[in-house]
């Protein structure tokens, strides 16, 4: 059983036995009422005690209880009412006081003084209940009496901690706080409270001149208490420890000693606290609607029937929608609502206007004035003074253009300096500047022009590349038009306008062989097939196949054998070349083996990488034709029935069956197997002079007569990946190195420029192009510089053919 139930049960028991007061159970309202009754019953026959008490009080303290005598006079009814009131109000206290007494007893026992026990015994002797009842009425008087009796044993304030607690339940607190129990109203009502004086709500001052204070319920006067004289007042002040909290009730004219509880209440009110000390300011909050889902509904009310049956209204609505959907109207107008997700906003963002903040934060100080310099001095150094010419110029200039807005003058002393006439004007303008000129922070980038140039590796990190002219090959007597290296690089051939082809030893510069032709040699190219040693030479309208006579003897003889065994030319396409075998012994000795006649002068020949096919470009400046010879069959074919534009160069792809045909502006890439145009590389040039294909086949460079060099990455686009214009004059030839990442361009300005052109096998990486070296040495002749160049097949060397009739090897 819980404590609460226990107490309730006890209370019930008590209500059956109202006489019992010694119960130690806690007070309940029921019990109070019962106690009150019992008190009345007991109090009525024994008014003497009251008198005794009042006497005692009057004996001890003269003005202790002035009303007591009056009470006597007031009659029983008033007493009874008062008693009732008192008993009711102090019903709780009594019990506690009992407990108090018990405690006191214990304390006394502890103290062990027999004398100390005496007053308690007396009290007990007098009758427990009555004594306390009286004590309740007189409240503090009794205590003071007890105090006096106990004398110095205990401090009165110490004695009554319970009093303090109880007091609010006393006279005052009872009325504002109606008790929770019903019974209380039967015996006690606020109307009856303190109605000893019934003057109502009139100022008490009205009774100042009367001996009475007012009237009681029965209309009798309530007299003022006897006025104490100054001596009494002083003695009280000196002796009574409760003097400081004794106040006079003006309604009754009696002194009231404020109890500890009253003081506490006053203090609380002064501090603005809740007057009730038991009141919890911040009670623990119990959430009724908690997050915990309860298994039972809050209400036991059954669900309404309509929540079970389908709604007719909705049915109609659905029906209408179904109709709309069926008729197709709904699909048109209905759009699924955009699901609105939770909205977020930046809690920490600053709400202020960013422009405002920017303006506030980026305060731009006013520009500083230029500090005075030497020229502003009254005695400037001579060099700052204007010469007459400078002064004249200064006068001629617009005021805006002048570097200085005054003429520096020299004075022998500061004293002689005249007033400055423009001072006010200058100040004014400065003020205008400060206040009118909008100030703006300009983000000026301090860019070093060199930084804008893309960072290229330094040429010295890109070694090896040709840099010095090492060998000069002299022997030709006219412009050297073409140069071609043998596969091993031990020899190379050069064709010249002096109608000869010369074979040179690369290392020593020795001319090994000279082959004469009837017409200037336009082009010479070594057959790339290592099994045969054969030169294709374009001279006049012929393409000559020449055995160079150098290199491996076995290969040379093989070459001759192969050429002899070639079948007779047959069924060549119409209009293509006529093949003929050189039979003249002198020519054969020189190396001539075969020749093909064309309608026009041959401009260029180009071997296929396998060394069997040979593309030949012939024609005049305005019309060109392309023909492809097949050496092994001595056959010629015309790949293009009609080619509209003028072809400047033709070249085979090193690995794939592609043919690059450079017209004046475009490089066309033809697929020879599919017989179609594969790509068109736009050079942005007007006259493409030469093209070269990277040995891997994906990059093409094209040089033009406008000195522009374009690098095409065929994987990237048909436009140049890089266009370079570093030559001063027309580019005559471009070439790639077979092994090293090098390419070179020969120009009419007499230079060969070697560039590093690294092509990465990683497709994501674009080629790296860095011009590394300008090779000079050739002399310009007839406005022609270097006409051709070719790299050594294995070394980073380049041979250039110059218009000055020399060839140069750069290493």
């Amino acid at each position, binding site marked *: 059983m819980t404590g609460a139930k226990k107490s309730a049960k006890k209370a019930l028991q008590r209500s059956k036995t109202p006489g019992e007061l010694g119960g130690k159970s806690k007070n309940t309202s029921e019990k109070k009422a019962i106690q009150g009754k019992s008190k009345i019953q007991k109090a009525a026959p024994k008014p003497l005690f009251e008198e005794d008490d009042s006497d005692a009080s009057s004996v001890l303290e003269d003005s202790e209880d002035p009303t007591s005598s009056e009470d006597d006079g007031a009659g029983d009814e008033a007493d009874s009412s008062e008693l009732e009131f008192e008993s009711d109000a102090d019903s709780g206290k009594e019990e506690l006081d009992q407990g108090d007494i018990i405690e006191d007893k214990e304390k006394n026992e502890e103290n062990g003084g027999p004398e100390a026990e005496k007053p308690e015994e007396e009290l007990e002797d007098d009758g427990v209940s009555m004594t306390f009842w009286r004590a309740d009425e007189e409240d503090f008087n009794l205590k003071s009496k007890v105090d006096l009796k106990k004398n110095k044993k205990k401090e009165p304030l110490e004695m009554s901690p319970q009093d303090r607690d109880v007091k609010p339940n006393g006279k005052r607190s009872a009325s504002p706080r109606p008790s929770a129990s019903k019974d209380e109203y039967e015996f006690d009502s606020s109307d009856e409270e303190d109605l000893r004086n019934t003057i109502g709500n009139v100022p008490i001052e009205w009774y100042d001149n009367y001996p009475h204070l007012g009237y009681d319920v029965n209309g009798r006067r309530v007299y003022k208490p006897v006025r104490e004289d100054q001596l009494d007042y002083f003695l009280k002040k000196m002796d009574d420890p409760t003097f400081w909290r004794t106040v006079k009730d003006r309604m009754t004219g009696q002194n009231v000693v404020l109890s500890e509880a009253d003081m506490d209440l006053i203090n609380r009110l002064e501090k603005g606290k809740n007057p009730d000390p038991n009141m919890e300011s911040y009670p623990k909050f119990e959430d009724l609607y908690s997050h915990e889902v309860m298994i039972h509904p809050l209400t036991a009310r059954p669900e309404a029937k309509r929540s079970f049956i389908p709604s007719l209204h909705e049915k109609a609505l659905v029906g209408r929608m179904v109709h709309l959907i069926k008729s197709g109207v709904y699909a048109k107008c209905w759009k699924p609502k955009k699901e609105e997700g939770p909205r977020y906003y930046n809690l920490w963002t600053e709400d202020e206007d960013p422009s405002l903040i920017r303006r506030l934060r980026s305060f731009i100080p006013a520009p500083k004035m230029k500090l005075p310099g030497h020229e502003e001095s009254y005695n400037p150094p001579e060099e700052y003074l204007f010469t007459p010419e400078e002064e004249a110029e200064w006068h001629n200039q617009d005021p805006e253009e002048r570097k200085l807005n005054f003429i520096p003058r020299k004075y022998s002393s500061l004293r002689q300096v005249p007033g400055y006439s423009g001072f006010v004007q200058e100040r004014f303008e400065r003020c205008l500047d400060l206040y009118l000129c909008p100030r703006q922070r300009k983000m000026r980038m301090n860019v070093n022009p060199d930084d804008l140039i893309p960072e290229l590796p330094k040429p010295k990190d890109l070694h090896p590349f040709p840099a010095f002219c090492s060998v000069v090959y002299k022997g030709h007597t006219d412009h050297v038009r073409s140069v071609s290296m043998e596969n091993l690089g031990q020899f190379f051939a050069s064709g010249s306008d002096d109608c000869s082809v010369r074979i040179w030893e690369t290392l020593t510069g020795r001319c090994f062989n000279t082959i004469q032709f009837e017409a200037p040699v336009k082009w010479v190219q070594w057959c790339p097939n290592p099994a045969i040693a054969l030169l294709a030479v374009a001279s006049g309208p012929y393409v000559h196949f020449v055995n160079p006579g150098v290199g*491996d003897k076995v290969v040379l003889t093989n070459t001759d054998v192969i050429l002899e065994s070639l079948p007779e030319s047959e069924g060549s396409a119409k209009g293509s070349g006529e093949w003929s075998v050189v039979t003249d012994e002198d020519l054969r000795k020189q190396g001539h083996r075969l020749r093909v006649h064309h309608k026009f002068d041959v401009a260029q020949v180009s071997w296929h990488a396998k060394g069997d096919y040979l593309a030949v470009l012939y024609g005049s400046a305005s019309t060109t034709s392309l023909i492809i010879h097949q050496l092994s069959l001595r056959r010629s074919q015309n790949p293009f029935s009609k080619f509209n534009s003028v072809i400047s160069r033709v070249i085979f792809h090193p690995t794939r069956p592609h043919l690059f045909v450079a017209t004046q502006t475009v490089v066309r890439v033809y697929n020879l197997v599919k017989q179609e145009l594969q790509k068109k590389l736009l050079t942005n040039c007007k006259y493409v002079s030469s093209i070269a294909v990277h040995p891997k086949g994906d990059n093409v460079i094209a040089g033009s007569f406008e000195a522009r060099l374009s690098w095409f990455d065929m994987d990237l686009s048909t436009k140049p990946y890089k266009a370079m214009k570093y030559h001063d004059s027309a580019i005559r030839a471009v070439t790639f190195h077979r092994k090293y990442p090098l390419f070179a361009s020969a120009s009419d300005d007499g230079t060969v420029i070697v560039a590093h052109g690294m092509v990465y096998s990683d497709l994501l990486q674009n080629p790296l192009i860095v011009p590394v070296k300008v090779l000079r040495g050739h002399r310009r002749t007839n406005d022609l510089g270097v006409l051709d160049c070719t790299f050594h097949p294995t070394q980073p060397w380049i041979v250039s053919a110059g218009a000055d009739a020399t060839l140069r090897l750069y290493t």
Partner: protein
Amino acid sequence: MESDSLQARFFTKEEEFSLPEDPVSLELDVTPEQLSLLINELLGRQGDTSVDFGFLIRDNIVHSTLREHLQEHEISAETLVEIEYIEKCPSPEPVDSLLHEDWVSGIHCATVGSRQLILSGSYDSSVTVWSVSGKKLISLSGHAGPVKAVRWVHSDERYASFVSTSHDETAKLWLWDHQKNQIESVITCKGHQRSVDCVDVDLSNNRFATAGFDNVVKIWSTSTEATELDLKKDSEPKKSKLEQRLLTRTPLVSLANHTEAVTGLRFTTPSEMITCAMDCTMKVWDIAVGGFTNNLLGSKPFLDLSYSALNNLVLSANADRHVRLWDTRSKEGSVVKSNFTSHTGWVSSVCWSPSIENQFISASYDNILKLWDLRSAKAPLYDMEGHEDKILCCDWSLEELMVSGAADNKLKIFRHANPTSKSKPLGSS
């Protein structure tokens, strides 16, 4: 404040010229010539007896004033500087210029019998034997292409043999009766597929090695008699005595590892050979095993090399302006010990001195033959000018003869008069 004088102590290794080793105070601006005068004065030599001295500070030859030399080599002038003086190498004298029909591309000198002979190969496919005095003893035109290199092989009282290599892909071993001045036999060594550019005879004169643009080094027997390696042309009728002795020989060994033309080749020990090639490598071969034991990587294609038995160092001529000194045995650091830079064109050929371990000559495409001392990397001892075109080859097999052949068809002989030199017979170098 830099002082103008330094404390120096002269010393020499030649007892003839020794001086008391007392410190001497020298002005810093003194030149080697003045120092030489000073030494002569101290030695008390005057007039004809005076000797030109050269000076070395810490094994570097002094070319300029002492101040500049000390600055260049960062030697403090505060401390006592030890200066070695040596008898200065006298300047080489041009002796003769032998005119050829065509470019002179191969040269070798030797003492044959009692005579000092010069063997030269030319671009006109001829091999010529000259006496030092400039007399053409015999000119042989057996090659079908320009001769690239020649080498004396062996000589005795009557016969001398030499080998020549050519663009016609053969090397020819000639046996020459120098008494009668006639060719006894010619052995054609066939096997190369390209021009044969270099040749060297091993130390025991039993084998010679050739190499060229076919990247293969081939070793042949030097026997002038018919061996089992020789192919016989049975089908051909016997013609003459000389024709009878035309033999064709096949190689003993082929060593193929170079990837580009082999341009230089020298035997170092009886079983070891160094080759250099255009593929920028220098390989040390063990002939007995037939493989290379060391592969030295250069930065430029090699054109020639020379090996000195005196100091075991290798010189290389590259397709650039420098002569490089290699120590093939060095395991630590760079194998290139120093660069000798003074030429302005490709260095086409280098050759060690046969007797002086510090000296060598280099021939270059800048038409100048230079005499170098190892202790002076920046400047050569002497420039020998005279050629009017690229010098293609040089040789210093005889101590007093430095010869060079050039593209101006001339073979120039310079006499190197080294006072301490002593003549050595052929084959002992």
